């Protein structure tokens, strides 16, 4: 981990910093999306960028997600490095053809005669009272779509380093930013740095159980681990950081050590990324060390409701992680 000199910034600022530094460094990098200019984007991520880079490179678009994601694909095909902001991950439903059928497939389908260095940034998740169509966690779709990488950072530090890597990557990358992380702070070096894809981070060491969690759930898992420690349960928290490529080795290594695995994500549990993680564990040598079944704690299988209480009850909270982990840690003992 790079020296930060005690400097703390928010996740949101870290995302912006990665974009700004890459845009200074490489004239082919530019940002495209709705209301990213003077408005600064729906969440303020690009605030101030218009002033520095002008409307050519902080390019506001009409409300046309399919169109501008396709445009970004075409620009990337020409060697530009567009970053596309989809205002809410939910609206990526409008750009699935552009991302999955075009951007992700072009290299292979064209026999290697193309590369598409495209980053698609999108705020995900619930917790802001925006209801069913503005609160989804759709990462699982892209795991099953070869040709696109998927990144879901949980800290400001990772956000900056992984986004820098994403922008320099020569392939389409979906970069998922949980809305509730935007205001969280963390130590972040001012200088530019990269974090390699496919390297999980063990956020906390433990011997009793492995909790695998990404994006905001990595933070909640850490809080849960602190509480569990008070009860004498030492949880190891592994944050894969990039879901594709996935650092199977670190995950499996941890599970082989603890013998127990709890997977946590916000997306509905059924059909979520948890199944892939379960398979990765079960198909590995860690299977022989399992003292209890691999467990998933995911969002409930419902659209996200508007009411605050219902919304909170729809996705894993710290107390849910504590409870599930506790039960799993005791299972079979």
């Amino acid at each position, binding site marked *: 981990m790079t020296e930060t000199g005690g400097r703390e910034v928010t996740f949101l600022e870290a995302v912006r910093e990665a974009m700004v530094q890459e845009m200074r460094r490489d004239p082919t990098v530019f940002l495209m999306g*709705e*209301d990213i*200019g*003077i*408005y600064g984007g*729906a*969440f*303020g991520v690009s605030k101030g960028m218009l002033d520095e880079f002008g409307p050519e490179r902080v390019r*506001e678009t*009409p*409300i*046309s*997600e*399919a*169109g501008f994601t396709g445009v970004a694909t075409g620009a990337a095909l020409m060697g530009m490095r567009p970053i596309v902001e989809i205002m809410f991950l*939910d*609206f990526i*439903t*409008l750009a699935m053809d552009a991302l999955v059928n075009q951007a992700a497939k072009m290299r292979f389908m064209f026999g290697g005669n193309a590369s598409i260095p495209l980053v698609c940034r999108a705020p995900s998740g619930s917790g*802001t*009272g*925006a*209801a*069913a*169509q*503005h609160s989804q966690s759709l990462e699982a779709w892209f795991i099953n779509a070869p040709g696109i990488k998927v990144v879901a950072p949980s800290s400001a530090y990772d956000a900056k380093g992984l986004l820098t890597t994403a922008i320099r990557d020569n392939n389409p990358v979906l970069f998922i930013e949980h809305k509730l992380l935007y205001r969280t702070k963390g130590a972040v070096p001012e200088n530019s740095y990269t974090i390699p894809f496919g390297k999980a981070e063990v956020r906390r060491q433990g011997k009793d159980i492995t909790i695998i969690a990404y994006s905001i759930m990595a933070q909640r898992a850490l809080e849960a681990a602190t509480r569990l420690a008070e009860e004498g349960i030492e949880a190891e928290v592994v944050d894969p950081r990039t879901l594709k490529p996935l650092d199977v080795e670190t995950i499996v290594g941890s599970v082989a050590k603890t013998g127990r695995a709890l997977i946590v994500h916000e997306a509905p549990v059924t059909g979520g990324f948890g199944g892939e993680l379960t398979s990765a564990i079960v198909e590995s040598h860690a299977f022989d060390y399992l003292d209890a079944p691999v467990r998933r704690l995911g969002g*409930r*299988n*419902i*659209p996200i*409701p*508007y*009411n*605050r*209480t*219902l*919304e909170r*009850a*729809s996705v894993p909270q710290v107390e849910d992680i504590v409870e599930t982990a506790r039960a799993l840690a005791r299972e079979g003992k």
Partner: protein
Amino acid sequence: MSSPDVQELLDTNSAVVPESLALTLPREKLEWMLGKMCETRYFEEKAEELYTRGLVHGTMHLSIGMEASPIGSIAALEPDDLIVNHHRGHGHTIAKGADITTMMGEFLGKEPGYCRGRGGSMHIVDIAHGNMGATGVVGSGIPIAVGVALALQMKHSAQVVLCFFGDGATNEGAFHESLNLASIWALPVVFICDNNHYGMSMSYRHSMNISKISVRAGAYGIPGFTVDGNNVLAVYQTVKECVDWARAGKGPSLVENLTYRWRGHSKSDRNLYRTPQEIQEWMQRCPIKRFKQLLRDSQIMSEQETETIDQRAKETIDRAAELAVQMPEPTPENMEDEVYAP
């Protein structure tokens, strides 16, 4: 039916519709229009207040200053006609007959609200009154409205559906595909663009290279109109013509109501993309004030009469808010059982 040559309606700041139209309409209709516009205004001011008091979790989209567009449009409907609404849809919901307390309850996320607190401000549905619901995905209500119209046509119904959306929504592919489908099938739908000049922050003058959105009708071979959307009678008259056209089986049409939102797009808006003058100018064109003035000028109502309607609207809203705040919250058990219909 052909598009009138409307020249910068807004600069004239006057009704293109002869004031005499007011004289031909039943008084109850005019009272209804004024009442619903006032209710909408007060509903949204109350919504803001509740939001500021921390009683609302989530975002909201206010249409203060835009009331003539939904209310003038819906005034042109028969009671059993339908609407499909969008995210900035309080006025539409009210005009279509919503119970204000139930609506306020939904806004507050309460169990007795229109969506049992599951939907919130962006998704209010009121099937009993012909409000077929709203989507928060810009443009996505347009094909749904076309589907509603298709069902009406297949059922040989005489009903018509109004489909509401904003200026920004007309840049979505859904707009294009939907208007095309409605046109080739001659469906009974009127497309109404509440053109409040901006998407979230992008002026429609930058989001498209045409000065009137109504010209887009030409791409589908349907009539298109641009109307002074702050003149409730002008809106009423044009939409009425289009509703009649649709009801007669002649197919869809597109009406662009030029208007303006006084407030920010939503609560995160710092209004940096427009000038205070511009907002001021538009506040001068307040659709409610203008309508009251017209009613008085044409001696249909006295000031006291318009103010009585206004006051009644305020009381309706105040009472609704009081009741709604006390409504019970929903509880999270068994939500899985609500996802699929039996």
